[in-house]
């Protein structure tokens, strides 16, 4: 019945333009190819929406944005770190500590702090406990390199960091949607995406992202009522972000080092004051 139906050029053009031609098998094929989605909820919607929510609401020049986001995030974190150092949690995060204490002119020397315990408590991903302990010794050298960058960038504390929160939401949503895939395989492809490069580098590597995001997205009871839009108020992300900034590539990630979570909550006040004007 339907044989040898090679549509004419005109017919093909109509088919390509979306028309349907009665009795053509090719038309049926294209109709099947363009039938609207069956699922009421496309699987990727959640992560796309998360990214959408985190995107700036005003028109911004896309090419110039990536670096400033990271940079201003880091600057906010460094500022946070300085205050944290003053507050007595001086040993938080090796190089970062070195930076802040150095920046404070040695006054915040951390000899009194039970450094590693607190530091470890502050970073759920714990990508850096090794470099932390070692770098607290050579704080002077680290401070010299770090303090310059921190002082230069600390002036701009209006960080549009919601993008990191959005990326974390997207990451987690993707992870959930990938339950049938091997998580690691999914992640490795996922992590190479340019869209995630900021997140991955901020978290100190692909392996650190889960921990980083878990910390970032944990609701902070005292600091903020809108955690999704004001991420810098969370206590956990200074440590790792600054670690990344210092460019310690932690090759081995001791994910077992999550001791003493009791300290995680003592900082939001200092943090909130450090990033007082995050959104414009």
């Amino acid at each position, binding site marked *: *019945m*339907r*044989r*040898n*139906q*090679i*549509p004419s*050029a005109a017919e*093909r*053009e109509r*088919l*390509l*333009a*979306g028309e349907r031609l009665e009795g*053509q*098998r*090719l038309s*049926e*094929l*294209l109709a*099947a*190819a*363009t*039938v*609207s*989605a*069956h*699922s*009421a*909820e*496309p*699987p*990727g*919607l959640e*992560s*796309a*929406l998360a*990214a*959408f*929510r*985190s*995107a700036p*609401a*005003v*028109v*911004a*020049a*896309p090419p110039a944005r990536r670096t400033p986001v990271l940079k201003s995030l880091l600057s906010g974190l460094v500022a946070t770190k300085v205050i944290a150092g003053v507050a007595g949690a001086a040993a938080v995060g090796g190089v970062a500590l070195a930076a802040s204490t150095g920046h404070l002119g040695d006054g915040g020397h951390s000899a009194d702090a039970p450094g590693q315990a607190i530091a470890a408590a502050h970073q759920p991903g714990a990508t850096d406990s090794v470099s932390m302990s070692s770098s607290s010794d050579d704080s002077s050298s680290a401070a010299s390199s770090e303090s310059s960058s921190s002082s230069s960038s600390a002036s701009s504390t209006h960080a549009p960091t919601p*993008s990191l929160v959005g*990326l974390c939401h*997207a990451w987690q949503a*993707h992870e959930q*949607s990938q339950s049938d895939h091997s998580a690691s395989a999914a992640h490795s*492809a*996922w992590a*190479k*995406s*340019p*869209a*995630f490069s900021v997140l991955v580098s901020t978290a100190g590597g692909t392996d650190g992202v889960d921990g980083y995001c878990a910390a970032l997205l944990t609701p902070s009871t005292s600091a903020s009522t809108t955690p999704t839009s004001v991420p810098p108020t969370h206590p956990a992300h200074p440590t790792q972000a600054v670690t990344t900034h210092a460019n310690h590539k932690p090759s081995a990630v001791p994910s077992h080092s999550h001791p003493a979570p009791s300290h995680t909550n003592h900082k939001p006040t200092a943090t909130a004051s450090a990033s007082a004007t995050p959104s414009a």
Partner: protein
Amino acid sequence: MTDRTVVAGQLSSGTGMSECLAAAREGDESAFVRLYRDVQPRLRRYASVLVGGQDADDVTAEAWLQIARDLHGFSGDIQAFRAWTARIVRNRALDLARSRSRRPSVSIGLDDLLDRPEQHDAWDLAAERMSTEQAIALIATLPRDQAEAVLLRAVVGLDPAAAGEVLGKRPGAVRVAAHRGLKSLARRLSADADTPISDAE
């Protein structure tokens, strides 16, 4: 929300979608969701021709991160938006190809690297009721330039010029590829109707 009611319908031609696009650019979330629901199925199908169904979700999900991030700076109508998003999907697919390549410095063609969808059961169709997956798989059996041209035009909904931009080709080349693809599909479908297919390798 409205998706449920249009299960048997076709992807929309874009009416109303330009308004949606404008609202989404201003930050309207529900507009973004509508936009997503309009465009994502197209992109997903295009991606599955490029990288196979397994990776199409990843590729499009990554693409959407970029789309959402850069949407506010986008200017153009829904046609241009579809073309832009298709290009992003294509680039992500190429990224995936490169990440799987052992020779990252060598110039890579998608044909060399990407898994193509399985072919055999795609042809084993009663043809009266063909699923979307089967239809896409069938189109994916075409040479890649033809498959892409057909997908971009008939499924993503681009005109030859926009499709050409996505592919980095002249509109005429897209046109030729799309027509060749359709002719080839038509031939195979009619041959299919004459003789029952027994999964020839």
